[in-house]
């Protein structure tokens, strides 16, 4: 909100100007980046391994080839992933099951990186409703837009963390809306979305993912970095990863439920 205010004030009163500048940035040593997701739907699941690269390097992000990737769970499943294309590793028989904890073990050039993530129980979406309202405070004849409200019920006495993905006609348009039940444990909760992008006859799908706390922390710190604005945030820093040994990225287990509506 703060950055919004500053942006508006800057727009309104200041004669600001923008230009692309040349900057000389250091080249840091490449670091391993892990991106792995297990869910409660049928596999296969994928783990992507890449390296960081120089900031102004225009080439594709380098992939990590020939790594060993093993995912196991606390019920005795062990699955060795196979590399199906450069840096993309796919599971075999592994099946994500609610209530289990999953362990990732990656070996790259003799260094082991590990992570664990709990696969929470699925929370069903109760309803997705839409209504047409005008932008608050605008005159009576102002155009109306769709307000989408997604309702679900939190489980009592369990710490829950949620991530939403919103699809517009099958394309992800938002995937970093986060909620937790710190202040309303066990209550009915809702997410409201209001944009001018929604039109009549569009299909809106909402996916509610239950995630564990460390994955939630990763997403929320990732959101901070993505929104980096030197005036609005503290000094930028890397998102807080759940992977050991200084690797970037995250390994997450999640359960998801989905509901769609067609706008009328």
């Amino acid at each position, binding site marked *: 909100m703060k950055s919004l205010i500053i942006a508006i004030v800057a727009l309104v009163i200041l004669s600001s100007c923008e230009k692309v500048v040349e900057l000389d940035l*250091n080249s840091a040593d490449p670091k391993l980046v892990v991106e792995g997701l297990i869910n409660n739907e049928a596999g296969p699941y994928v783990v992507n391994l890449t390296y960081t690269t120089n900031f102004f390097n225009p080439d594709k992000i380098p992939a990590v080839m020939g790594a060993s990737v093993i995912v196991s769970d606390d019920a005795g499943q062990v699955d060795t992933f196979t590399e199906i294309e450069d840096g993309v590793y796919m599971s075999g028989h592994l099946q994500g099951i609610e209530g289990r904890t999953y362990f990732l073990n990656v070996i790259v050039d003799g260094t082991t990186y590990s992570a664990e993530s709990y696969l929470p129980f699925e929370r069903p979406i109760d309803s997705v409703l839409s209504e047409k309202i005008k932008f608050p405070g605008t005159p009576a004849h102002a155009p109306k837009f769709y307000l989408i409200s997604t309702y679900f019920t939190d489980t009592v006495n369990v710490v829950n963390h949620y991530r939403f993905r919103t699809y517009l006609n099958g394309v992800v348009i938002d995937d970093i809306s986060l909620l937790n039940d710190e202040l309303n444990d066990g209550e009915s909760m809702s997410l409201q979305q209001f944009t001018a992008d929604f039109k009549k006859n569009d299909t809106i799908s909402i996916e509610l993912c239950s995630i564990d706390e460390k994955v939630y922390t990763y997403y929320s710190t990732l959101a901070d970095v993505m929104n980096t604005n030197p005036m609005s945030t503290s000094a930028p820093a890397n998102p807080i990863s759940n992977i050991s040994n200084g690797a*970037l990225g995250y390994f997450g287990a999640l359960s998801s439920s989905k509901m769609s509506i067609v706008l009328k």
Partner: protein
Amino acid sequence: MYSATSFAQSKYTISGYVRDATNGEELIGATVYISELQDGTISNEYGFYSITLPKGNYQVEFHYMGYVSVKQRVTLNQNQSIIKELSPNALDLEEIIISGERDDKNVKSTEMGTMKLDPAEVRMIPVLFGEQDILKTIQLMPGIKSAGEGSSGFHVRGGGADQNLILLDEAPVYNASHLLGFFSVFNSDALKDVKIIKGGMPAEYGGRLSSVLDIKMKDGNSKGYDFSGGIGLISSRLTVEGPIVKDKSSFIVSGRRTYADVFLKLSSREELKNTQLYFYDLNVKANYKISDKDRIFVSGYLGRDKFGFNDVMGVDWGNITGTLRWNHIFSDKLFSNTSLIYSDYNYEINASFGDDKISILSGIQDFNFKEDLQYYLNSKNTIKFGLNAIYHTFIPGKVEVSSLDTLFKIEDDFALETAAYVSWESEITSRLKINAGIRFSDFAALGPGDVFTYNEESIVTDTTNFRKNEIIENYWGFEPRFSASFLLNEKSSIKASYNRNRQYLQLVSNATSGTPMDAWIPSSNIVKPGISNQVALGYFRNFNDNSFETSVEIYYKELQNQVDYKNGADLMFNPLIESQLVFGDGRAYGLELYIKKRSGKLTGWISYTLARTENQFDEISNGSWYPVKHDRTHDIAIVGMYQFNEKWNVSATWVYNTGDAVTFPSGKYMIDGRLVSYYTERNGYRMPDYHRLDIGVTYYRKKTATCESSWNASLYNAYGRENAYTINFRQSEDDPNVTEAVQMSLFRFIPSISYNFKF
């Protein structure tokens, strides 16, 4: 033998006030000089002086910068009260006679790291949108750095923007900026005296680590009515002052309001038309002389910023201060001031969504009692002592939703901050002067409330409930202060100072400065009070009969218990905000050069600072020392004013500083189909160097007995330097694999014009 003892016993005191003859305003820091004894004193912050001398015949001289000196013969055989009124010099600077005794205060006093601003001089200096602003002007002094383009936030000798004690008629001002920092809350028209102390703070000041900015409002003309004001591009000002009862009681009312929003209404763009954007200030003061020994003052400040967008979202914030003071002269040697002070800072965010209206309120409120006593033992020794007690209420956040009851409220915090001090100013020999003092301060965080303890992963491990006024945590400590000056000869001196300061409230800011949403966090079971230790050494020398003033100062400052946010801190109205903090140390050192030309047609100064400011937090950059954002190696300001004749004055300022330390990415990677920056160390890069030239011209209309007026035109950033305000990174629109850096700059060639009048 008899005559000797009799002589020793027969000492008498001359005491009284020094005032401006035109409006009756007390003059602060006027010199009272006894030429026979080559001894003297200066008037205090209420214009009162007292000097005790052996019986005899003396010539007493009264001097004040910019005023015609007055001499008076006194036969001293009993205690005497002398109230002296001095007349200001004419504008023609060539006629001003520079006299040796009065203009060498900078060399002879024990004050170091102290700068005084003359509001008249501030008026000449060109500024953004022509809004005169003392907070902008002090940033042109050595050791004082701007928090950024157009910002009224400032850093003194490496200290944080929250480490400045900003006092308006003794009331602490918690947020001194308007419009997100582009303007300060101080309306120059209502101000009488501005003093900033960077080091060697006397013991009467406390509560902040790095500096004191002591601002006194005018008392109001006690001789006749005055109307003055100005009309500018951004705002207009009007001040009315005059006697309530002639020579006994006077008042001043000064107001200012911006009208940018009026122009927005004229805009053809709908979204601008519905934008509300303004601020206003109101300064009010009145005083009454009950008797020769008693005088009361009531002063107040009210300022508010309003920003609203389409009734959808609004932010409004501001300060309110009020001061009730009673000056009492117990005897001609003992001066007392008792103050009751109220300060309040709060902000409110309003948003509406559908039929729901949400409001978020946050702020800080103080009730403050102060008792200060000055005892003029003899002409060589003055003792000051006093007490202070402040009851703080912190409102970290209260959220209300119109359709529900209060959604949730973070508990208010309460605290009692108390202090006692004593200081002794003495002329040990004719060359050596010292000012030694000690301050004791205590801070008690009080109930009611729940107090949390956290484990290393920021999870609450324990909650303790405290009753009303029960002490949750108590901190106390001594703050020794010492400064000394040694006169090498009539023109030069060396000075040294040491001070320790304690600060019990810290502002945890995640932005440059002056955003209204920054939170003041009191010391608690988790947050320890900040402590600073500073040593400074200086050489002061005047040239050409005091027309040039120069100084060299070096300082080293150590800061303990500094606060910063954790990486990825969750801040907005978090009831467990203390779990989001990390604690560390700071250090700052530097060299300051200053040369000022005080008289003649050309006046002005050059200041240069070479400095380094670093922090060390275990959680940041692997625990190594890293430069803080406002660490600027070089900082230069050149200020020049040229008075062509009675009608024309031109002025120019040029500033240059090393770019701020900043965190830029040293790599990138892909997550969830997004390009993400990879950071290696905190503040490892620099923004581009900053420089800017501003010029101004003032034209004075012919002055008549009742009326004077002037036109002022200025050009900010005269050569249109595109100084980087922010640098952001983004994926190129043409090729998502290509990343580019985008610099945003503000304020190129900002002209302004204003008209000022007084009648």
